[in-house]
């Protein structure tokens, strides 16, 4: 195939752009003429010269252009990757629905694990790319009646190498939904991911009889890197 239009990714070096530096045809061509072709293709997602070879490789989706899956394929958009939705802590008696908590722990030292499945869009597998990590955030509430007391649970993301697991802490002193503090994350791969996390009750006091986990989300939470 004949190359019909020039392609380059080369930028002018600092030394080439100083006063009195000579104008070298192929340097100018590469830095401006060749790169404009590449920019066009990355932005529009189309090869502008129909019968020419593309200037850029295919993105992780197997398509052309920046698909915002992380560098060099564009800054990502923050968004949820996975959802567990619930109204089990609904205190209103006006709405009927599932009332069984997803995870409920009553004894200190007790723990439960849940395995979730999530599909992640293709991305170039490198460290520090936005889609290489998924942030797990859970919300829970204290079990037990009115009064003073609190319950504390640890939420741990378990990877295949448990030594590299990360965790957050949920301390709840009321029956209102509370967000666990900390930023536990899973290492993600393109495609289907099967992930396990563990919730362990570590303390309770006062009227607290335990803790319930009822809402959770896994998020793509970095734009360029972690």
């Amino acid at each position, binding site marked *: 195939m004949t190359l019909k*239009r020039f392609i*380059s*990714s*080369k*930028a*002018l*070096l*600092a030394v080439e*752009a100083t006063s009195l530096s000579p*104008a070298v*045809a192929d340097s*100018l*061509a590469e*830095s*401006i*003429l*060749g790169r*404009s*072709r590449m*920019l*066009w293709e*990355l932005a*529009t*997602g*189309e090869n*502008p010269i129909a019968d020419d070879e593309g200037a850029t*490789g*295919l*993105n*992780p989706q*197997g*398509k052309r252009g*920046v*698909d915002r*899956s992380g560098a*060099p394929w*564009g*800054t990502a*958009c*923050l*968004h*949820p*990757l*996975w*959802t567990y*939705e619930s109204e089990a802590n609904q205190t209103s008696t*006006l*709405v*009927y629905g*599932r009332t069984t908590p997803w995870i409920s722990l009553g004894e200190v030292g007790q723990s439960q694990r849940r*395995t979730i*499945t999530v*599909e992640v*869009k*293709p991305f*170039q597998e490198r460290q520090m790319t936005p889609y290489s990590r998924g942030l797990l955030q859970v919300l829970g509430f204290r079990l037990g009646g009115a009064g003073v007391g609190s319950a504390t649970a640890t939420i741990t993301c378990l990877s295949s190498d448990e030594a590299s697991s990360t965790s957050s802490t949920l301390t709840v002193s009321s029956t209102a939904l509370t967000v666990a503090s900390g930023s536990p994350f899973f290492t993600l791969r393109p495609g289907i991911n099967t992930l396990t996390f563990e919730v362990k009750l570590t303390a309770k006091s006062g009227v607290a009889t335990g803790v319930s986990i009822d809402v*959770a*989300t896994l998020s793509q939470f970095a*734009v*360029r890197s972690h």
Partner: protein
Amino acid sequence: MARILASTFAGTPPSEVVADASIYWRALYQALGEMAEVKDRLTGENGNAVTINHTGSGRGCPLGLAIANQHIDARIDITDPSPAVADYVDVIAVPIFVATGEDQSWVLEVEISDPKPFNEGEVGVTATLFDSSWAAFQGPIDGRRTAGGIAPGRPINDGSAPPRTITDEQQFNTTALPTYSWNLTLSAGLQFLTVSRFTRVLASGVGGNDSSKLGAWRLYPARRQASRTGAVPSSSVGNNHPLPTTFVPGTWVEFDSTQVEESGPLDAYVISRANRNINALTEWMTGAPVAGNASMTMTTNRLGNRASFTAEPLIDLPIACVALGSSYAGGFKLIVAPQTLAASTGMLQWSRFPVTRPDIVTPASVALMRCIMPNFSTASSLLRLTLLVQAPGGGATTLNDWRVRVTAAGTSGTFSFTRMGATNYWSSTITAIPFTPGSHQNVIVNLHHITPAAIDGDLIVLGAMAYFEAP
């Protein structure tokens, strides 16, 4: 004088840029124009209408994000219906919003207990797509049982003689629910999806109720992976001509036609500033360093927040799609006398509805999702949520007195429901929901009734989808 701009790409023949070649003014002129055009399309500046909004067909590569990744983990038992159900019940019924440019093949996967063994010979799990008037435009389509679990009543291959069979309860207790999957061709825009499962209640004491479970479901683009690792070529060695640290209108240099003329001088200012422009555009768009540089210089990203470029294109983005309950299109009511009594029949573990409607004069929460929001512009918020509900009382029932609103970073306006076709399905799309960019927040759906004394229809909440829809 005129701003150099090239609305279409022409490029430069390689023969014009080899070493020792003449430097053609027209080649430089064209490249500067193409550079300016790309910048205008990415930023929306200068009234460019062909903005890069990731809708394909030259408007940028579609993002390819999943629509749904929901974990449900609910029993789908039916409690003492009258009359007995022996039919397909919608265990998932949701609105789905497909971003423009993503009208392609999608994969639907549902983890669900197999239908009862007496139903062997049928697949027993189907998917159907409906348009906004609830006219079925695809399906019902049988699912393909692709993974997990062992169907109740089927032999276990463990060497037992005679072979043992798995019971419903054994399957319920296993974490490996079967997965049913479909390949669906979705249209762009809002539509509705139902997944139905053949369901029957056995008489009490004769095998008990249907002991089944709905695990999780996913809806994502049918993937084709890159056959080779895509990469932006890198050939430079050494330090590049310095980049600006931000990409804002003030750091972009425009070129005038008088600066690149036939027989005119080769202007060092034009060359160096054009190089900087392209460096800046490259980092801002790709999120990667300019070839030859070890790390990013720029601190600004292409986000769609319109912080720097007030016309930066806005894009469609799915946030979360959640199934919230079940329905039965045949008119079987999942609840008994809901105006005065607590519900006692139906798929009680997998349904959600107001119990004592006359009391719901102040909004009550029927769904709560935790979502991280993109760094998009908050002016004229494009965040929407479509809620699908059913009036199980039948087609004559009206839901005209029901209202819905959504609370995220703030509370939206209040919206009514629209009946879809002549069915008992109704939906409402709540628009301009306030959100905080780059932040987690609870997205809460609230329902209330505006004339509590009126005899208005019962309502079952079926599903919701939150999404950004660009104008």
